[in-house]
């Protein structure tokens, strides 16, 4: 089983072959920071310490601050 990760900014789709993985680890693998991204698991907003199980679909997008 895999965790499917879609990064909207780069339009990358990545499959991570893991049983479970934390949001922090996913972001770290992709070189992204939580303070600048929103992470959704099956549509639900999750945070750094949340753990993602296999079979989950993750969407990550950048949050911009400027006006």
């Amino acid at each position, binding site marked *: 089983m895999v965790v499917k990760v879609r990064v909207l*900014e780069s*339009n990358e789709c990545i499959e991570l072959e893991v049983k479970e993985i934390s949001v922090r680890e996913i972001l770290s693998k992709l070189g992204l920071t939580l*303070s600048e*991204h929103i992470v959704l698991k099956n549509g639900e907003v999750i945070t750094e310490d949340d753990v993602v199980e296999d079979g989950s679909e993750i969407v990550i997008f950048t949050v911009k601050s*400027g006006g």
Partner: protein
Amino acid sequence: MANIEGVFESCRELSSEELERYSRQIPVIGCEKQLKLKESSVLVAGVGGLGSIILYYLVAAGIGRVVFIDDGIVELSNLQRQILFTTEDIGKPKVLVAENRLKALNPHIKLIPLQATITEDLLEKYIRDVDVVVDALDNWEARFVIDKIAWKYWKPIVHAGVGEYYGQLTVIKRGVTPCLRCLFRGVKSSSRGRVTVLATTPGILGLLEVNEVFKLLLGLSEPLYNKILVFNGKKPSIDIVEIKISDCSEICEN
């Protein structure tokens, strides 16, 4: 043509000058909705890249009362994207320059420029009298202040943020969506840096914000509730992501 004339005949509350000014819009939205715009009040927080485009279109389209807040002065580095200002305006308070330009565009609009920083006390005075709050700010600290006060008075917020080629947009409404503080709770509120952005990015996101204001005021269709529009100007692409948040009450009610 007969239908169009019929529409105009029912617009007795608008002057002949207003009828001509909005003559390309009234046949689309109808007279009642044009009057609805005239009776509406919108607060725009921030008069920068987003705020410039938002104010131009709100005022051009006939929003009756527009409150806008910014404590900044016009700088040379603003002019690449902040289209309300010209080279001659450098050094002048943004809101005062904006007021003159907007008054020249549409003298029917009641403009309330506030040269001030965003504080709870200031917003307490103004948010309760508006129909919609538009977030055109450049930092999360101030965004979370407008979120708090708008939540208190049940006022919808149209939010956008931009950077480089990218931007996001959503609409917050108490009772329908989570608050901004909960939705973006991972974001560090103190993060405020020099914005680097392609000139068109705030223009596009600003217009999409205005479109959401019209949807809210006129009930055209469901606003972007519980959805985030993610814009990528490099492609270009627009993704609309549905979001679920189970419990935000601890964050939003405090």
